């Protein structure tokens, strides 16, 4: 167990690689109750969210979620989050545990009288069941037909193991999966029930260590490592979440300018030729000259290689470009790699 953003979290249960591979081939269960949940309620909820985030929340149907950064006026990323449209005048923002307090303060500072900002973090627990067997396992515990909950959709009021939950088809692993929001008092029961229901499938509890190897293989970013208030979504490869045509939002002007002028650095993936791990802060070299820094790195158990992310000048950020990472005084050679490092096998067309 380690301290993480004000919470005690397990790094691993049986082993990072074992848990990682379980998620990729069967299923793994994560306790991610440390995430922050902020509810926006009232006639001004949608407008507030639309101002705060770069993605277009007006396009959300009730029962739909989206992924978006939340920016400063300079376009720096305060946090990345999911926005759930609970109903016409209620949204739920799910934010990183490490940023929950800052996010709340920022949201409250921008809220007018027509919206209530409610910190639901202490009232919500969250379990994430991820992997190809997730649907089959969770289905044993609920009468709701889960195949009617597509990717990035959710259903509130779903009974799982006899308890009331919100189930969303989302996750941070690159696999199919479900995130189950529940009352904290119900979480231990749900945890046990899911592990029991998934026993024939070989479900494993999984911790922060596997969470990191899985997300990095899938090309997902971690706020604090890969992006922060000094980086913009355009630099971080999140341009697809920036909907400049949706209307005004905080950071829009800065991002518009940056888009016109061009970015001076870009987050890129790289793969190394040795298994030595590129750690946050290590220098990335091109022909011996430092050109950037590693923001995240690990050994990817499913790709069998040392992988990582780092900011590079755009001309060096092209897949196939040769780079090296300085690890303990040595330049370990590698190559810029298109993300994601790992794509889950798709079912063959019928």
């Amino acid at each position, binding site marked *: 167990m380690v301290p993480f953003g004000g919470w005690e979290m397990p*790094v*691993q249960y049986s*082993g*990072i*690689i*074992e848990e990682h591979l379980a998620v990729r081939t069967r299923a793994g269960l994560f306790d991610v109750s440390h995430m922050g949940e902020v509810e926006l309620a009232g006639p001004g909820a949608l407008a507030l969210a639309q101002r705060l985030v770069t993605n277009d929340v007006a396009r959300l149907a009730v029962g739909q979620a989206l992924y978006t950064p939340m920016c400063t006026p300079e376009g720096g990323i305060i946090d990345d989050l999911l926005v759930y449209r609970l109903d016409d005048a209620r949204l739920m923002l799910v934010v990183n545990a490490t940023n929950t307090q800052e996010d709340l303060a920022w949201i409250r500072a921008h809220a007018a009288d027509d919206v209530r900002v409610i910190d639901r973090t202490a009232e919500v627990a969250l379990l994430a069941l991820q992997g190809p067997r997730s649907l089959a396992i969770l289905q044993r515990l609920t009468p709701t037909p889960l195949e009617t909950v597509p990717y990035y959709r959710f259903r509130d009021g779903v009974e799982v193991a006899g308890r009331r939950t919100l189930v969303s088809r989302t996750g941070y692993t690159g696999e199919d999966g479900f995130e189950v929001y529940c009352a904290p008092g119900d979480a231990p029961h749900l945890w046990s029930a899911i592990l029991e229901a998934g026993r024939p499938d070989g479900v494993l509890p999984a911790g922060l*260590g596997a969470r*990191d*190897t899985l997300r990095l293989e899938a090309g997902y970013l971690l706020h604090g490592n890969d992006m922060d208030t000094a980086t913009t979504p355009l630099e971080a490869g999140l341009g697809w979440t920036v909907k400049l045509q949706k209307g005004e939002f905080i950071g829009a002007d800065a991002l518009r300018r940056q888009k016109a002028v061009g970015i001076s650095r870009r987050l890129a993936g790289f793969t190394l030729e*040795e*298994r*030595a*791990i590129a*750690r946050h802060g290590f220098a990335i070299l091109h022909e011996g000259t430092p050109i950037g820094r590693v923001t995240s790195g*690990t*050994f990817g158990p499913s790709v069998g290689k*040392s992988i990582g992310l780092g900011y590079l000048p755009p001309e060096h950020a092209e897949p196939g470009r040769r780079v090296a990472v300085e690890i*303990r005084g040595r330049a370990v050679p590698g190559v810029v790699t298109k993300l994601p490092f790992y794509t889950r096998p798709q079912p063959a067309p019928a």
Partner: protein
Amino acid sequence: MYPKDLRYSKEHEWARTEGNRVRVGITKFAADRLSDVVYVELPQVGAEVSFMQPFGVVESVKAVSDLYAPVSGRVAEINRALVEKPELINTDPYGEAWMIVVEPRDLAELDRLMDAAAYAAMVGEATS
């Protein structure tokens, strides 16, 4: 319990005397704490190592740890199989996962290491 024919350093390396050479690895305690070893960096054959100075690293997904030489001398052999399959550290830490063989300058250095009972006590396990 820990093999009785080995000597142990406080940094969790073991040393086995083989005639006039010493074979070196890390203990199960260290291997378990590391888990998921993905990379081992060993010195070149011919390199000099010094008592309780770093001679390499073992890297897991979580962290990098230095390896400390339990004896001074010249590296006579390195375990290339371990470099290929670092996960051997977790499955056979005293056998196939040996790291280096040293030609020691002074075998008396081994007296500064712990025996199995003392090591077991240090890591907080009862001896059987």
